[in-house]
């Protein structure tokens, strides 16, 4: 299978701190992969490099055969990468439906003068967008909650709206930053199933950052371990579980026993 995303020697520094250090990896189209690592390992920074929020000092990022490391965030989104955030970042004072509609922004083609005139193309597009937003809402099991303000929704629902908003931009690659943070075991399990279904049904490639090892081991086809910004291991869940370097990276920090870590 072809790689949808490849990075080569990506390095991102903040002053003297090297947050991501010479990081190369690739993920296959239609796969579910995870990046794990102790806190501060550079996982989220790496996400920010992919989405164009940060520009890496060195290295290349290739998505669907095109280099994207120099693009702006919105251009990257248009190319088909979207993300969710570790600490949910919905537009709190917009409704769930409006949030999803904003996610659709890059797929709406009408120009503003058309909106002013209110021509047929504009009206059709708005109607379709609304229908699609409703569909997405249904897809994440939040039917009927579209008019609720995002910030009034329960935590789990906010997570799902955020995913729906990300899906609204019709991505080929979905980046999920600790999607199960703050969830209990049952909720996590539900979300895991949801992600797997999503991939199976629509073929979207998924890349996760995750702390909950049960989720990671259960869902990932490939796991990459980051420590101090560098890759220390990569492979199938089983291989990672028994990798002495990984265990050291975690236990060396005096973390909890085994590989069960709660979210930061």
């Amino acid at each position, binding site marked *: 299978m072809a790689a949808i995303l*490849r990075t*080569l020697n990506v390095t991102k520094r903040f002053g003297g701190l090297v947050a991501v250090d010479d990081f190369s990896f690739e993920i296959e189209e239609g796969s579910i992969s995870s990046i794990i690592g102790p806190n501060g390992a550079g996982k989220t920074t790496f996400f920010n490099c992919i989405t164009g929020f940060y520009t890496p000092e060195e290295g*290349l990022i*290739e998505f669907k*055969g*095109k*280099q994207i490391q*120099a*693009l*702006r965030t919105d*251009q990257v989104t248009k190319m088909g990468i979207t993300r969710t955030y570790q600490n949910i970042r919905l537009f709190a004072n917009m409704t769930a439906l409006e949030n999803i509609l904003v996610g659709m922004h890059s797929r709406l083609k009408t120009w503003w003068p058309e909106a002013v005139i209110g021509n047929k193309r504009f009206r059709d597009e708005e109607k379709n967008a609304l229908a699609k937003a409703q569909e997405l809402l249904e897809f994440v099991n939040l039917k009927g909650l579209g008019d609720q303000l995002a910030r009034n929704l329960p935590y789990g629902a906010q997570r799902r709206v955020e995913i729906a908003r990300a899906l609204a931009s019709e991505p080929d690659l979905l980046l999920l930053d600790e999607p199960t943070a703050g969830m209990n075991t049952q909720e996590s399990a539900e979300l895991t199933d949801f992600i797997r279904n999503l991939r199976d049904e629509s073929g979207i490639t998924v890349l996760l950052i995750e702390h909950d090892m049960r989720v990671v081991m259960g869902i990932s086809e490939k796991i990459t371990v980051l420590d101090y910004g560098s890759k220390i291991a990569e492979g199938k869940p089983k291989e990672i579980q028994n990798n002495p370097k990984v265990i050291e990276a975690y236990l060396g920090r005096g973390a909890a026993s085994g590989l069960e870590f709660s979210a930061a």
Partner: protein
Amino acid sequence: MSTLTQPKLPTSERFSQLFGKYIYIAVGIIIVILLIGRIIFVARQESYPLSYWTFQVINGLVLGGVYALVALGYTLVYGILFMINFAHGEVLMMGGFAGFFALQYMTSIGWANGTALQSTLTIVFMMLAGMIVSVITGIVLERLAYRPLRGAPRLVPLISAIGASFFLQYTALLVFGAVPHNYRKPSVIDGVWKLGDSGIIISYTGAFIFITSILMLLGLFIIVQRTKMGKAMRAVAEDKHIAALMGIDVNKVIVFTFALGSALAGAGGVMLGLHNTVIRFNTGFLPGLKAFTAAVLGGIGNVLGAMIGSLLLGLLEALGPSALGLPTEYKDVIAFSVLVLVLIFRPSGIVGEVLSEKKA
């Protein structure tokens, strides 16, 4: 992996990316070149005597000293509350009026133009009056207009500050009248030194203002850096919640900050009165804006930056119009252009940390 070494980005997108990245630098360089060109052009055309330039430099330093006193009020408050105290110029104006009335009183009992000691005491009394009234104004302002709004979206306290500014300005207009009040200098600082035949003149007032403001700035520096309260201030500026957990009374620190900033503004108001020899209800507005500019120029939230920025702005204002061959009315245009340019090209200011761009 060899494919990755070949850039595949569409040319147009690459161009826009490069454009976005370097346009600021390019425009900046063009502006600098144009300015230097203009200065050289003007310098070759008309030449002012050296004494003129020295006069302007001294003028600029004096003005810069006053700006520094006011700018510190902005910077201290911004550093702690992340709000622009738009009414700070009015705090200055109140201090200026208090100093004026103190002067009136001392003149009426004959001290202002009495012996050197009496005259000196007059100045001390004026400064104290100005500082006390400004401190009261500042504290009341904080208590009534800002404290209830702490934690609100940033637009809200800013509007409140604008309202307070109007309120204070027009209250002063109504209470003290619209006529300009003339400061008559106490005899001890009324006069000039002439430096030989060079034509260089230094007024006593200017020297007094510059030296006093430097001394006060040093005092402030010591307060912020050395005292326990200063330490608390810096802690609150860093993180209010953590500071509160460490047992610091955040409200007390904020009030102290306002009091400190207002005291300096009060002194600045009196000095501005002595410098301009006149005070009116709207005296505070423009110096307030300029001082804010100076604070931004140096890097807002940064005490040292505010001092450097103020002196720089004072000099730019005094020298700029002549150097560029423009009439002196353009000094305000120059000041505001500096503000705009600094915020565009170096929003963190001269000394400021680069982080503040994200914070802002």
